[in-house]
């Protein structure tokens, strides 16, 4: 109870966006992105895919699954696999910190998945013209870039990240 609640704002924003309550007025081309950090760099995913953002909680390891899956968490009775995004995109491993978060995504088929990230920073509202579809050439999980000021934010290709094949 004494822990800071700074993630609450994002959580609400994300939920509202996901529910379509914050429909863009100014431009039909407006996109909302949830920005988070991995190994010091900003990454983003479409807010529509986010169901909620939760603090790190005990993750139960699961045998016989691809290495990128850290395990499962219990989310109010639902059991959800958590993908360690650092492992998934071959970044060096890191110990969890106070800002570590699990982003819970809904899949097309209604199944939930969790994404373990270093920190969640903001919801970015950008117009389509600030998106660069081509990412760094050899990336496996980045679908493009988004310009924020003079900084690039990597757009994560969730479909590829979540495609781990079916077991092993």
């Amino acid at each position, binding site marked *: 109870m004494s822990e800071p609640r700074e993630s609450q704002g994002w959580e609400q924003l994300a939920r509202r966006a996901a529910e379509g309550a914050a429909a863009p007025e100014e431009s039909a081309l407006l996109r909302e992105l949830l920005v988070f950090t991995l190994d010091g760099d900003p990454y983003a995913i479409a807010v529509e895919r986010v169901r909620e953002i939760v603090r790190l909680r005990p993750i139960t390891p699961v045998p016989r699954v691809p290495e990128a899956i850290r395990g499962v968490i219990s989310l109010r*009775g639902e059991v959800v696999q958590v993908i360690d995004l650092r492992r998934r995109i071959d970044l060096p491993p890191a110990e969890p910190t106070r800002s570590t978060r699990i982003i819970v995504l809904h899949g097309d088929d209604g199944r939930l998945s969790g994404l373990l990230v270093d920190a969640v920073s903001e919801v970015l509202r950008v117009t389509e013209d600030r998106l660069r579809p081509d990412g760094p050439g050899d990336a496996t999980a980045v679908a493009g870039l988004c310009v924020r000021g003079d900084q690039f934010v990597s757009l994560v290709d969730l479909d590829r990240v979540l495609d781990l094949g079916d077991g092993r």
Partner: protein
Amino acid sequence: MAARRSKSRARSKAYREFVSEAEEILERMRADLVDLGDQRQAGGEPDPDLVNRLFRSAHTLKGLAGMFGLDALSELAHHLEDLLDGLRLGRIDARSPAVALLDECVALFASQTQDLPDSAQRPADAAAIRALLGRIDAAAHPPATAPVADALTGLDLDPALLRALTEYEEHRLRENIKRGRRILLVEATFEILSFEEGLAELTKAVKEVGEVLSTLPAPGDAPESQIRFSLLAASEVDAATLAGRLDFPHTDVRTALDPNAPPPEVRAWGRARAPAAAEADIPLELPEPAAPGPRAEAPAAEPAEDLASAQEPVAGPAELESLKSISDTVRVDIRKLDELMNLVGELVIQRSAVAAIAQRLVADPATARVGAELQKVHKALERKLHELQSGVLEVRMVPLRQVFEKLSRVVRRLRRDLGKEVRLEIRGADTELDKLIVEELVDPLMHLVRNAFDHAIEAPAERQAAGKPEEGTIRIDAFQRGNHVVIEVSDDGRGIDAVAVRRRAEERGLVSREEVLTAKETLDLIFAPGLSTRAEVTETSGRGVGMDVVRANLTALGGVVDVASTAGRGTRVTLTLPITLAIIQALIVGVSDQRFAVPLNAVHESLLVDPAEIQRSEGRELLNLRGDALPLRRLAREFGLPEAPVTGKTYVVVLGLGDARIGLLVERLEGQQDTVIKPIQGPVQQIRGVTGATELGDGTAVLVLDVSALVDDAVRRREAA
């Protein structure tokens, strides 16, 4: 009417409900019609209960169709009702061709229901219905026959009692008189508090020797706390014999009509009874509706009462009443129950958090008193939660009866089609199981019964030669045993030919010629994929479905199947199933820093084993379990977890579904717990060796082991070796 229809149109959901409800009723009617057909063929009188049930079904259909504005179907149901009414009142002879129309009616109704578009825009096939209606009318209202001389004149009964009989009861009375049975009047007095049981017992006892024509509350001078009933019965035995059989206090039996005795002396009934000639005044002629009288309040004659009011062809208050009774039952999507179950599961978890807080408070002297209070409250909460949990579970429970009825229909059909004399005996149809499990049981049970019918029961000549009764018997017993339900399917057929099974298994390469198997192991080969001991596949036992599928189905339900057979004497297949899938008892085991849940129904025992007892054969670890070799698996190794060095004794959990057993080596046993198994969501759809996960009190997820996969893996490795 039009308004009603357009309103209904908007409710396609309601239509689906109508269809599903109607289908259920039609299903039941089909079953009853098959029974009726059997009785006709046997040349006997149709069972009044059966006809009444059919009549009630038709009546309900009529009400339903009317409620949904489906006038054509309602009309059809109405005529069906008419036809059945004629049959139960004896206006239509059971052997008349009119009875065949019943089948047609039900079939037409079923096809119309199936074709019903969501919006019910398209009128039902009016032409087909009208054509059938015409034929029913012709059959249901045959030219009136001359009234027979009144057989009731000779009865030594209170005319008031006779007047109170319904049309149907009177019909049965006449019918029994015609057959020369004795008409007896049983009068009994019961304590008002317990009369229902007493009356039920009495009725049962009387039924053993005859037919109960009517049960009426008897007027009289019974004290406040007591109630008197008259049972009008027809029987072959005389009053003294019946009285001798009835071991009830305050019960008298007297003869109202004895065909073998001279006409009884006229008795006085309060007022002087009129001589026989005047009895025609008593309004008893058949077409008269039953006179309203003391019957209206008769509490004990309820089924008959329903029917009496149901004869009213237009919707009167009685009909509204019966529609209301339909809605007493709520159809619930099982997923909604699952959601409730989940909620309860979460509450259970919250509860353990409260327990932990209470414990902490108690431990601190400063807060010990509050803590103790909280513990008390927590106890009460725990009890209520438990009740809630069992309440929700109970809602999911359905009796096996429905499945068993399907089976007996199948057997009847087979008997007719194949001309084989086989009787199906069913016991324990009221045994309850989770609805989902019951659904999944239909196919395996059907297969077992067909197998028994087709393969096990010999031809009559063969049976006679073996000194068995010509008629074979298939028996189904269901009963509860602890947290399981056991269903046994047994037959008195030829038994399983172990030699043929062995030969077949060798042909298929399932066992080698050298391998030594016990009798039981040989028998169990029938569950191996692709093994059937009869070369030819008949229509009856189906194609491609074998005992392997039965076992797979059972395993998927967390159940077990076993077989026992004696050559020449018969076979018994035993299915053991958990009562529910929603909550399972699990054993929590630990390896390294992990915990796992093992479904308790797969746990046979747990052993504390000295590492020195573990033996090895070709690198595989074994344990000598009372003389049997128990293959061991180390859970840590299976799941790639760090293994703690074995220092002292270690735990082995003996697991098995069916007959295969393995020993699972774990480091800790952490107790038993009720758990709700949840599917694991995420990118990986199936994790071998894991069926799901469950949340423990501290909010962490714990994986639930898939015992059948673990055992299969072990068995496969043995085969590969």
